[in-house]
């Protein structure tokens, strides 16, 4: 195996080729910068393909009452007001343009009767808002942007005689370290999975778009790639993460057979009329509407059912509460002994829609249950339960540019924090990727444009050598433990002790166990060569998962309230004082997570006035609401 390191130079390196990464790369290239896109898997396989329901954008195609202000309001309600309000505002305002733009690149969304983009209902969204393609919207986004990248490459072939002159995709590459020159980003170091060849990217700007952390938990809808790489790279480079305790458990994952436990069942099932029932056949969600949402949700099955055809005169069914509420309710039903045979509850679409309509609207769910569980969802109910799905916490960024606290470092999509507050609404992820992917790509391009040509950061040889040594350690160490064992124990620990419902003593126990895992990781062994060796790759990813788990656990212990994706059994209420606090995570000199409390950015008065005062009082202190009047 060659010991030399392949070296490349770019203006902007984008780590991650899901929705956010591709949108960032397209933007940086459109701004005239040279761009590398690095993906852990093959091009076009990123986790975004798993997104099913749609992209939320207040286009008003189905209900003309919709606009960005309603979308903003829904997003803050969903996030229980922990959101970065500027991000939520930009997101609500720009999402329609970002969706329309995809049509110019060839996307084919489902249509309304008048030929516009169709929009579907989803949890927490007041109006039908999700642009969709059946239940495979994420695939459409990825393919469209993949093809937009190719379209730039075709232009570059004409102009420069080389497809890869200005934008190149490095498929099946993994970055293990960001490199700096003083305070500033200078590049990234990693390896090519195919042969273990080390690679060095010299670049003044790096955009993190690595997605989430789900593989830290046992039951998850996330793929093997979701090992918190960007979160960890940011921490190791000196950047900060916010609100890592906020982890979304999607209410409906498959629960049987065991091998598919956690795989997502799209919220569209409920958006299109599906209902949740317990073992007694009861639509139990009516019992779980929290006080803050009582005004917006139906109290009887009759009213809820009327809403599908007459939404202006009826309130929404409680199955369409935000995900955190539904997940906790399912958890309670199962604990109370009213669960389904395999430890979930029933999700019934069969009795609600004709069979051919189910197959038309939810083709991939039909296919998934038929082939993986032998269940015909047009004839019988599905069994579902909560699954770790998304992390709201992430890299602390500037709302407008995606810039992290380290100069030259940017982040967009799931790896960034703030946009979704303590809980993300379904459909707000795909639109988040588009809006903030573009903004981070633009931010990075402008940052590079502002650098003096003779003042580009330099990579230090010693840093490269240190990164190389670190990456080789698991291969060179003999007789140590198998990385799969440590990973599976970590997943079980996080699932059991820092999962959907948390208690002080259990989280403390988890923090202690994490210390043990860190020691064991130091001496792991990955037998075999550097050629496509998954054991070696996992050993390296484990560093990232352990860093992220440390942040999640410590933040979960610190926040003494329950809010969105953070539920403390010992502090079950929301606290208006805690709402004002972001928990900011960085690394101390021993490489362990440390926390700092910082204020959540204040919500501008014109944005606050989008809500009724009586609603704001449920979330905020009197002090914060001083000077506000009851809305017109």
């Amino acid at each position, binding site marked *: 195996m060659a010991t030399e390191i392949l070296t490349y130079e770019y203006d902007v390196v984008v780590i991650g080729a899901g929705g956010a990464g591709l949108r960032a790369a397209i933007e940086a290239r459109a701004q005239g910068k040279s761009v590398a896109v690095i993906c852990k898997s093959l091009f076009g396989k990123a986790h975004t393909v798993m997104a099913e329901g749609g992209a939320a954008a207040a*286009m008003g195609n189905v209900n003309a009452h919709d606009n960005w202000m309603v979308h903003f309001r829904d997003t803050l309600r969903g996030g229980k007001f922990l959101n970065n309000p500027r991000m939520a505002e930009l997101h609500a305002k720009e999402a329609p343009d970002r969706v329309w733009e995809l049509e110019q690149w060839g996307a*084919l969304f489902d249509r309304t009767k008048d*030929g516009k983009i169709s929009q579907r209902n989803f949890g927490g969204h007041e109006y039908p808002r999700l642009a969709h393609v059946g239940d*495979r919207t994420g*695939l459409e986004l990825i393919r469209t942007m993949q093809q937009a990248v190719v379209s730039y490459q075709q232009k570059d072939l004409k102009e420069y005689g080389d497809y890869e002159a200005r934008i190149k995709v490095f498929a099946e590459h993994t970055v293990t370290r960001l490199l700096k020159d003083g305070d500033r980003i200078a590049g990234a170091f990693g390896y090519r999975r195919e042969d273990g060849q080390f690679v060095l990217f010299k670049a003044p700007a790096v955009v993190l778009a690595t997605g989430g952390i789900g593989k830290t938990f046992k039951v998850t809808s996330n793929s093997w790639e979701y090992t918190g790489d960007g979160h960890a790279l940011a921490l190791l480079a000196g950047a900060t993460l916010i609100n890592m305790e906020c982890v979304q458990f999607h209410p409906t994952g498959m629960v049987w057979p065991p*091998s*598919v436990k956690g795989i997502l069942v799209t919220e569209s099932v409920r958006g299109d009329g599906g209902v949740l029932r317990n073992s007694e056949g009861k639509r139990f969600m009516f019992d779980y509407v929290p006080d803050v949402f009582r005004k917006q949700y139906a109290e009887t099955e009759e009213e809820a059912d009327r809403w599908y055809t007459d939404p202006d005169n009826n309130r929404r069914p409680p199955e369409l509460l935000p995900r955190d509420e539904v997940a906790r309710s399912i958890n309670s039903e199962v604990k109370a002994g009213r669960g389904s045979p395999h430890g979930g509850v029933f999700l019934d679409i069969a009795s609600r829609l004709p069979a051919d309509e189910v197959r038309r609207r939810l083709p991939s769910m039909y296919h998934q249950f038929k082939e993986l569980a032998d269940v015909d969802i047009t004839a019988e109910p599905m069994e579902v339960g909560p699954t770790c799905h998304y992390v709201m916490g992430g890299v602390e960024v500037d709302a407008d540019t995606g810039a992290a606290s380290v100069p030259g470092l940017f982040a967009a999509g799931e790896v960034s924090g703030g946009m979704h507050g303590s809980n993300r609404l379904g459909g707000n992820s795909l639109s988040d990727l588009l809006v903030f992917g573009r903004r981070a790509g633009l931010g990075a391009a402008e940052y590079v444009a502002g650098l003096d040509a003779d003042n580009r950061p330099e990579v230090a040889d010693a840093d490269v050598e240190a990164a190389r040594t670190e990456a080789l350690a698991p291969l060179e160490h003999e007789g140590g433990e198998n990385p799969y064992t440590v990973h599976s124990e970590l997943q079980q620990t996080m699932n059991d002790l820092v999962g959907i419902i948390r208690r002080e003593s259990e989280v403390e126990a988890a923090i202690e166990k994490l210390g043990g895992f860190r020691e064991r990781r130091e001496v792991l062994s990955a037998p075999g060569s550097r050629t496509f060796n*998954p054991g070696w790759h996992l050993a390296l990813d484990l560093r990232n998962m352990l860093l992220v788990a440390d942040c999640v656990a410590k933040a979960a212990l610190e926040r003494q309230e329950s809010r969105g994706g953070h539920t403390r059994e010992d502090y079950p209420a929301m606290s208006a004082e805690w709402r004002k606090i972001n928990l900011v995570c960085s690394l101390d000199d021993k490489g362990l997570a440390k926390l700092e409390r910082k204020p959540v950015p204040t919500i501008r008065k014109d944005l606050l006035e989008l809500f009724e005062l009586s609603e704001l009082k449920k979330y905020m202190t009197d002090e914060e609401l001083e000077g506000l009047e009851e809305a017109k």
Partner: protein
Amino acid sequence: MSYKAKFKVWRGDAGKGDLADYDVEVNEGEVVLDIIHRLQATQAPDMAVRWNCKAGKCGSCSAEINGKPSLMCMTRMSTFTEEETVTVTPLRTFPVIRDLVTDVSFNYTKAREVVSFQPPEGLAPGEYRMQQVDVERSQEFRKCIECFLCQNTCHAVRDHEDNKEHFAGPRFLMRVAELDMHPLDTRERRNEAQEEHGLGFCNITKCCTEVCPEHIKITDNALIPMKERVVDRKYDPLVWLGSKIGRRKQSHS
């Protein structure tokens, strides 16, 4: 519920390799990919395999299972008897990198050769209007998860290495059809399919359609309609034959 299965998995690299034997536990409801993961976790930590979603949505875990091109995540163990030996080998059409991982760059090269969507001029974002019935034809092809099983199976490349240069394969001929049927694409693509992407190599044996995990009717709905439109100019005996033996659906155009 649980039993010991006999597996043969191809282990090796570009240079050489062979089938390796494993006895491995199988539990109720599992798929072939679960068993490969169990082998990694317990017996062969460096066994190379691609996978992502484990739900038939990303198209990463393509392999040949008992000789049949399949997604490992969608092949349930219950389709085999407990006594049966399950043999897993890499896609045959593409060069092996290691174990079950092959070099599929051929497909990305071909993808780049299909000219992208050409939007109509003067239509601003938000002004696109299309009817559902018109987008559905291309939407069927956009369900493609790029597992490349069709590319692997098509004998025009599987058995004829020298055709690779001139033949885009079913996946990318379907991409041309998708753009051709896109209600707003402005490019004339008919001749390109024949002259640049090798549509003529296809002799409509439907092997691609048979292995498609998304059940896309590649031959009937994408390739034959394109052949028919080319036939406006050129006589193609296979289309004539196809129409006589009743294999094709009513044409759209």
